[in-house]
């Protein structure tokens, strides 16, 4: 997992799930974060698309089940698109 990306991701997810940043860890998931329901999951996907200028494929949306997986997929996409790091 890219540390750099994880550290950019943490405050965003903290805002999104209305939690202090220190309560977000790589293992955070819908099981550990109460407000992470399906509507908030969609909000998160769109928020990442907005803020990183990328797009997730329909099948990828279901795979983003914890913070580490999100950071990994994001890194992959940003490397591919040559987008902002």
């Amino acid at each position, binding site marked *: 997992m890219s540390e750099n990306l994880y550290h950019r991701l943490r405050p*965003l*997810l903290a*805002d*999104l*799930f*209305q939690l202090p940043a220190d309560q977000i860890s790589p293992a955070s998931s819908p099981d550990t974060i109460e407000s992470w329901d399906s*509507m908030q999951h*969609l*909000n*998160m996907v*769109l*928020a990442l*698309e*907005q*803020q990183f*200028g990328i*797009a*997730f*494929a*329909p099948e990828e*949306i279901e795979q983003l089940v914890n913070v580490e997986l999100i950071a990994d997929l994001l890194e992959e996409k940003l490397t591919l698109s040559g987008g902002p790091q």
Partner: protein
Amino acid sequence: MTSNQTRQWRVQAEEYLAEGRARQAHAMLSAWWHENQTLTGASYVLQMAQALRPHLELRPCKLRVLRSCTVEPALQLLRAGAFAGGIDLDASVCPFNAYAQEILDASSALYREKPDVIFLMVSTRVLAPGLWQGPSGSAAPDYARECAEVLASYRRWVETIRTRCNAALVLHTLEQPALPAAGILDMQGGGQTAAIRRINEGLAALASGTPDVYLLDYDALVARHGRTSWWDEGKWRSVRMPVRAEHIPTLANEWLRFLHPLRGRLAKVAVTDLDNTLWGGILGEDGLQALRSGPEGNGIDFWQYQQSLLRLQQRGILLAIASKNNPADALEALERHPGLLLRPNHFASIQAHWQEKSQSLRQIAEELNVGLDSLVFLDDNPVERQQVRLELPEVTVLEMPADPAGYATAVSNCPLFERLSVSPEDAQRTEYYVGQRERSQLERSSTSLEDFLHSLDQRVFLIPASTENIQRISQLTQKTNQFNLTTRRYSETEIRRLADSADHCVLTIRVVDRFGDNGLVGACVLALADGVCHVDTFLLSCRVIGRTVETAMLSAIAQYCRSSGISRLEGYFLPTRKNAPAADFYPKHGFTCVKEDAAGSLWRLDLETATPTCPPWIQVTQAEELALV
């Protein structure tokens, strides 16, 4: 705007919240939100809103969205934007794609919840797939039939909503496909896009022909940003969300444009700076000749900004100036610079001096007789903007872009400037303030208030509610904050119902004086039962406050009551943060207080023993058909 400044706003918002300075916290948060209109930003704003809400005066708004697609993320942004703009939004969606059932079922949640506003947003793709994708077989498509069916459905839905609730209804037009199925042949007529255009024109006719129904041209919104880039095929397939992530804030902002005028959270005055805002350059340093402004060349950004202000004036919004300059120099530049679109007589108030901007804004609010929360402040200088945010957190301070090419867009994207109707009164408002300046001169030259009132030569016309003035009466209830005894807001539909009801009477008044016609500037709603006339609503526009018009109105009402066998007048005074000017209305006119609680006080006048009389300097004329019962 640097991200440092942005971060600082967030820190400050949290600090002010901790200090209990809720309005300053709200001003900082609003500035931060302007630069962070994302879903994570919205979550943060809404978290802060939880703590701030109880300490702010927000305009409440209950919104229900009838939709054929996933709009929840846009709604999240709308909630945050509404909070930043001073609206306390209770927004929710009706069950997915069940809009027709919600409308047609008289016992549905839609009607139980009594929303103020309903959005009806249906995707072309869902409602008319044949029009969206073109023919699916070899048979020639019957676009005319599809058109007629779609419009018949909308007509049924609108009529049903209109008979079952008072909410304002905002119809969304159907979006056009990016490329019609038949290619350029479609443009030659009779095709798919012509059919969708016909439906949208039908929707426009339906909206303008039904009270409190408005049109949001969703297709034009999509077209503004590009039909190919707006639609998100992947999200549509997976979660039925039709809008690409980057455009969701745009949709939310378009919705805000409707909520502000519908709930009366409006800017009445646009206050602009001069140097590097209204014109390019600094008058005191560069001199009049060097100032940049004009329809061509290097002053065009400023010309376009002035044009955007002129457009506000055409909607009835007053313009004012707050500038740090020598007054005579500023006035000379405004009068003599060859490339200006706006001149001194476009401005209802000109504050050019060396006091703080917050002080100028206070004076403008006083001079124009509006609340500070009716001002929008436009200034290129971030320091001035920050000063105003902290000193006068009620004032809306627009974040102006660094490049003047963006000024005009910043103005036209501010939802507080939107209007859904403009009355003749609105369009003449600036003229009124020119008259007002002359009135003030008369007032200064009069030896006493009575002299002044006599010389004004006022005539007051009492006019019953009718088709011609219902819109204005509704507008008066929406917008009048100061001289307003109960501050009850009524939609056009509600005013119409009250006027049609046998036990209510709805009146408006026109005031004409020697300087001109002030238009329809007052309204009252009376409920009549058991020999009592209950004053439900009694209000006067700030234009005529302090001219004893309210006494004339009251005396006319009393006279009618007596002639109709009504012996008692009663009414509440419900205090708000704004309506202090009306607080002594009842006691001053001999009413006695019969009840008082946290919400307000109830007042009574026995017409058999007391008679409010009309001031001798006002002549009251009643329309003949006026009858209370």
